[in-house]
Structure formats: C-alpha cells, structure tokens
C-alpha cells in the first residue's frame, strides 16, 4: 500500500453503478465522515446518497430539498443536508455542527458553502457525461478523507 489516494476520477454507466459507488463509501464510512457533493440537478447526487445509506444499513432516502435536512438511523446516523434552496447557507443555524462529529454527514449542493468551513472532507463532483453515464471526481481534503478513500476500495 502506498500513500492513500488524494484524488480519483471514476466513470459510471448506469444509475445502479453510481449508487454502487455510494454504497462502497457507506460501507467504509466512520463517525465524522463528511461527504460534500457538487453537481447540477439530475446529476445523481440523491441517487448516490441512496447507495451510501444502503452501505450504512439505513432505509429509504428522500430528497431533503424542502426540509433542508433528513436524519436516517443506520450503522451510524446519517445527516443528509441539501443546500439547493439556500443562497448563502449558514451552517451553524442548519445544525451542521450538531452532527459533524458523531454522524456520517452528506451534503448536497456543497458548493454553496466555503469549503474551508467544512474541515476534513471528501468532495465529490458529479458530471453528466450522457443520459445514464456520469463522471464522479473525488478529492480528499485531509487525512481522514484520504483514509476513507483508501479503505473504500474505490481507488
């Protein structure tokens, strides 16, 4: 094993493959794992979170766009944020810090916040490359997210 991967690009060819990447990260996630998802409407973010939840043994996932955050019980609690409706989200007032350390936090539309406020996190950018194909670009910002990427089996 060399140095844990810092960045990774993976192409998927079906919604099931995109969800599977989420499942792999869910299986490897630990308390304090933070995934920052970036990508346009329909890029597969919520689908990826469904996979992530499956990897954590959690049940149904629905879009939190309207309520801004959903919690799901699983092997670890999942806090699923969606910043779509917010121009300038204020993380403390969303309750972000209540879940940051003891849950797996996954945040859609994470580009709406300054990533320096997030701490050690795995940023995942979703690019639409075709009707069912997507390109996922992973970038670890610190030791914990590097270790996650390494242990996920994706690299």
């Amino acid at each position, binding site marked *: 094993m060399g140095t844990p991967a810092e960045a990774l690009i993976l192409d998927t060819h079906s919604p099931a493959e995109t969800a599977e990447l989420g499942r792999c990260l869910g299986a490897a996630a630990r308390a304090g794992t933070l995934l920052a998802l970036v990508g346009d409407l*329909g890029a597969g973010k919520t689908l990826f979170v469904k996979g992530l939840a499956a990897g954590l043994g959690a*049940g149904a996932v629905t*879009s939190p766009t*309207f*309520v801004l955050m959903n*919690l799901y019980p699983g092997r670890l609690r999942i806090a699923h944020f969606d910043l779509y*409706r917010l121009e300038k989200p204020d993380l403390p007032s969303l309750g972000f810090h209540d879940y940051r350390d003891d849950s797996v936090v996954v945040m859609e539309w994470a580009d709406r916040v300054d990533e320096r406020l997030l701490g050690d996190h795995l940023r995942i950018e979703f690019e*639409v490359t075709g009707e069912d194909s997507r390109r996922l670009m992973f970038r670890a910002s610190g030791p914990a997210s590097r270790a996650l990427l390494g242990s996920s089996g994706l690299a």
Partner: protein
Amino acid sequence: MKILGIETSCDETSAAVVVDGRDILSDVVQSQIDIHRIYGGVVPEIACRAHIESIYPVVEKALADAGCTLAAVDAVAVTCAPGLVGALLVGVSMAKALALAAGKPILGVDHIHGHMYANKLAFPDLAYPCVSLVVSGGHTSLYLSRSEIDHDLLGTTTDDAAGEAFDKVAKILDLGFPGGPAIDRVARGRDPGRVVFKRTVPENLDFSFSGIKTAVLYRVRGQDAKKPMALSSPERADVAAGFQAAVVDMLVAQALKACARTGARRIAVGGGVACNSWLREVLAVRAAKEGVETFFPPPRFCTDNAAMIAGIAYPLFKAGRVGDLTLDAVPTKVHRG
C-alpha cells in the same frame, strides 16, 4: 368548542379560530411569498425571522376577527411536525406561552393530517374510509384515512416531492417561483401530447419524481445537460404542459390504484399541488369512470393555513389526544425503515 389554531411550519404565518371543527370564525394567513421569491425558494433563516415578526399580530388579528379574546378560547392547537425546525418552533413556543398564560389545553397537530382535514372543513359530509392524497412542496403521500384523525400510510415519494419537482422544473424552464402556479399557467391551453415524458409508476403505492426532473433537464439542455436553454416561449410552454401531464398521470394512477387495493370509493386531495387545475380535471374525470368520488378543497384550504389545524384539533380533543407543555417541534418526516 372554540379552538385557536397556529401554523408556522413553512413560509406562511397563520392563526385561526374554528368552532367544533367546522365553523371558521377567522383565518388569517400572512404569506412571506414576496420575500422568498427574491431567492427562488423558502430561506429558513428569513422564514424564522418573518414568523417571529408576524406571529403576535397574526394571532391578535385572528382573535379580533373572530370577535373573541384568548380567555374565551377553549384550547390552543399548533402544528408541531413536520417542517422547518426554526419555523415550527416559533408557532410551538407561541402556542405554549398562550396555553400556559390562559390556562388552556394545548394540542400538537401533524401538518399533513391538517392538510387532509382541509377536506372535512370544505365538505363536512365527507365519509370514511377514503384515500387521501397529500401533494405539496415537501410531501407526496397516499393514506387510507379511516376517520378524520386516523390515517395509515400507503405510499410516499422515494425521492422528490411532486411540488419540489414543479419548483425545480420551473427553475430549469426559467418560469419563476413558486413553480406550481407558474407551470399551471403557461401549460394552460397547450397540447400536453406535444412533448411526452415517461411516466414512472412503481408497482407498490410509492412515487418517484426525480427521473422526470432529469428528463426535463435533458430535453431543455441536451444530453449532457450543458447546452444553454434555447427554447422559444411556446416550446417552453409545451415542455411545461408535458411535464405537468406526466406528473398528474403518475399521481392519478397511484391514487386510483390505492382505491382499487383498499376498496375505498373516495379520494380526498390536499396540499398546495391540489390547486393544480390539470390535476383537478384529470383526477375527477378518471375517478368518475371508475365510480370513485373526488374531493378537492378550495385553493385557500390547499395551501398552508391555520383553519385546518384548529379544525382537526376538535376531533383530536374529543379523542383525548391532548398534549402538554413539553410539546416540541419535530422537523423531519418519519422514515420507513
């Protein structure tokens, strides 16, 4: 029995006084829509501040319009779930303060149950069992309602809510916020068969609207969703009409399937999307063909209002489902495991 109801789960600050779950003495709704339109959606920090500013005058006006005082009210009811937590807390705190100060019982009401009760307010003779379809920006669910206060969940969206899909598609089409009325308006008079989107109808009674949202995106911006929108106004209207027809077909298909499976002969629709003119038309026609009766409350009872909260509190009170001052706001929906 006179009940003061308070509703602050999203972007409307509302208070109402309703007698015996039927007679609406007052119903005051202070909408924040103009503030939120600037941002293209409801902004929670702003919603909370607006609720705090409005709640006291709104409650005072509801009491004044009803020609009564707090002392003359028999109970206080408030929406305690689900919604934006900060927004819910404003109403819950106000209701608890009023109940404590005036020595009145307090009742916590589920917002979704309130939407279903809107039909009882509009149609006091509505009988049970019936299938209830609640469609709004945050919810899309089917219930078997055994009474006005007992509802069994039959199915729910597995991704986006129908109203959320309307909002997002309106944004893709650059039609403005809120998306539902905007799409309804431009789609009127257009041929919904000109642009056809695939209907996703799960075998069970769930819904899925994320696929159609993505399909609209491709239709408008090309296969990689990157091309800038180059549609003329009539083309946009056709996409809007095709999208609306597809969503309505999915809602109608599942609602009628719910009737077939439960044996219920009535469908009562509630929530903001119940205002949609195409849904009203199509559901009424198709349900009639199957001998199913449909109920749609008037638009003012479809969107968020406190009359439905004060209304349902009466049967809740009679059933002994009374809360106390430990009542708390519960923001998230209950997720099925």
